[in-house]
């Protein structure tokens, strides 16, 4: 008996569902479906604005008016602008000094906390407070601490006989203003270094220290030959991370000095803001913001590669 050849039956709904389920269960399909929405979101609100920013920087674009393509004219204008070079210098000084202070202070604090003592968790939590309180709000407190007429620091200095009244003008004198924003940035950022380095210290096996001590290594030698080398990756990541965000800092300076006096504390971000938002020149402002790209791009790519490689 010859079998009656059956016409290929159309797939029934159940089979379709099974096939769809199998397809969805493939690793690549499942992964891309999961990631699609967030990736589109990030592309629309990070990728596209970034490209649009580059485009804006090539335009003469007053706010609420159509732009005119001007090529690199904004960047040429930047290069001829003495304030731009002052801003560049300020940003490097601010970032360099604040980073050095945060790193040294943070390492010191981490080593201090790493000892055993009572109420350790409570004290550690208290020490992290400057970092968690919204920057603008703590900066307002600093503004009052450094107030020209009512500075509590000056009150202490004057009454301690250290300076003649009315005392230094912390935010009015160009050098002191720069020193002030550096100190406040350090005040806020130091706990981040300390807590990160502390977490790094706690991953170093104690028997390394014991072995070194038995071999007669001094505390200094143990620090240089055990602590520091093993802490190096954490120090590197934390530092690059903090350099990126200090280099592009905005809040602190905007609130405390608005870049003054006479641009002495103006940074890239605040200068770009002044030109684009207060001055209404979006194109030129975008070019100033983009001036951060070579420095930040290198750091971002370097750090990303380094972290991927550690995995």
């Amino acid at each position: 008996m010859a079998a009656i050849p059956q016409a290929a039956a159309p797939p029934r709904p159940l089979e379709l569902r099974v096939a769809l389920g199998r397809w969805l269960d493939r690793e690549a399909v499942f992964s891309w479906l999961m990631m699609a929405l967030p990736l589109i979101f990030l592309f629309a609100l990070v990728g596209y604005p970034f490209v649009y920013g580059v485009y804006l920087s090539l335009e003469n674009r007053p706010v609420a008016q159509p732009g005119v393509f001007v090529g690199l004219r904004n960047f040429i204008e930047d290069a001829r602008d003495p304030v731009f070079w002052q801003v560049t210098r300020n940003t490097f000084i601010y970032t360099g000094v604040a980073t050095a202070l945060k790193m040294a202070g943070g390492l010191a604090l981490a080593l201090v906390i790493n000892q055993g003592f009572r109420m350790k968790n409570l004290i550690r939590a208290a020490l992290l407070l400057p970092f968690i309180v919204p920057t603008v709000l703590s900066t307002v407190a600093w503004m009052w601490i450094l107030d020209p007429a009512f500075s509590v620091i000056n009150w202490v200095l004057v009454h301690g006989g250290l300076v003649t009244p009315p005392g230094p003008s912390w935010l009015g004198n160009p050098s002191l203003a720069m020193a002030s924003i550096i100190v406040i940035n350090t005040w806020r950022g130091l706990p981040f270094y300390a807590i990160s380095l502390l977490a790094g210290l706690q991953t170093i096996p104690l028997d390394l220290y014991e072995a070194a001590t038995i071999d007669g290594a001094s505390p200094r030698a143990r620090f240089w030959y055990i602590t520091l080398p093993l802490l190096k990756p954490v120090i590197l990541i934390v530092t690059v991370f903090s350099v990126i965000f200090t280099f592009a800092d905005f809040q602190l300076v905007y609130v405390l000095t608005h870049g003054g006096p006479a641009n002495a504390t103006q940074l890239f971000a605040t200068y770009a803001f002044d030109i684009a938002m207060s001055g209404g020149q979006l194109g030129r402002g975008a070019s100033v913001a983009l001036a951060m790209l070579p420095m930040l791009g290198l750091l971002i790519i370097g750090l990303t590669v380094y972290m991927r490689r550690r995995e």
Partner: protein
Amino acid sequence: MIERRGWRARALRLWLPLGFFLLTGLAPFYWMVVTSLKPNAELYNRRIMPLIVYHPTLKHYIDLLTETNFLTWTYNTTLVAVVSTAISLVFGIMLAYPLARMRFAGAGLIAAAVAATYLVPQPFLFIPLADIINNLGLSDTLTSVILTYPTMLIPFCAWLLIGYFKTVPRELEEAARIDGASRWQTMARVVLPLCIPGFISAGIFAFTLSQNEFLYALIFLNKTDVRTVPVGAIAELIRGDVFYWGQLMAAALLGSLPVAFLYSFFVEHYVAGLTAGSVKA
């Protein structure tokens, strides 16, 4: 460590530096509290010793709550922080899970792109974003910041959670798969419930980041009833040359409370989130 420790050494090595860091770290907060409680007569009197309050008053707090829109700003700040944190957590999970646990072409590239996105500071993007938000007609709406905050929070959450998802043993997943669970079921019923501490860390950190945000809020929100606390305080408690110091300090303190409160309950989670990027446990 094997060491002899006299109390002198301990004082010098522990309590002295600790005291210094605690004093410098916390003095500004003391100063905030003291200032916010001083009547104006005391605040602006240079003859008296400023370090303590002689006649404490809640006047600045009452004025802040009744004469300004502080409560509205607080509501806005909280709403924006909660919604953008929620969005970022969900999107962060959607990104992190495949990147941590699946093998597919392009995974490495996407993971690197996400990490790089986390490192892009806002000043890079605020000018084009201002124009985009303006063109979308979203200026002076909370939507503008609810949409833009996740741009910095999603990469952070994803990054933290990738590390977290990787700690879940593969055997658990394989067992579920052998029992016939789909990838979705394996994720939703087996892996995700184990990662709740990671979600808390990411959520707390994202929440404090959005409370801290200033630049986008400053640019997008120019009307008092949509402002957040930092922008409201800077824009409305400083009028020209007139600083309402008492109210400013009261606002700074009250504005810090939600974060500080949350933080005090979840310190360990917060620290875990903070150190996730740099330290491998």
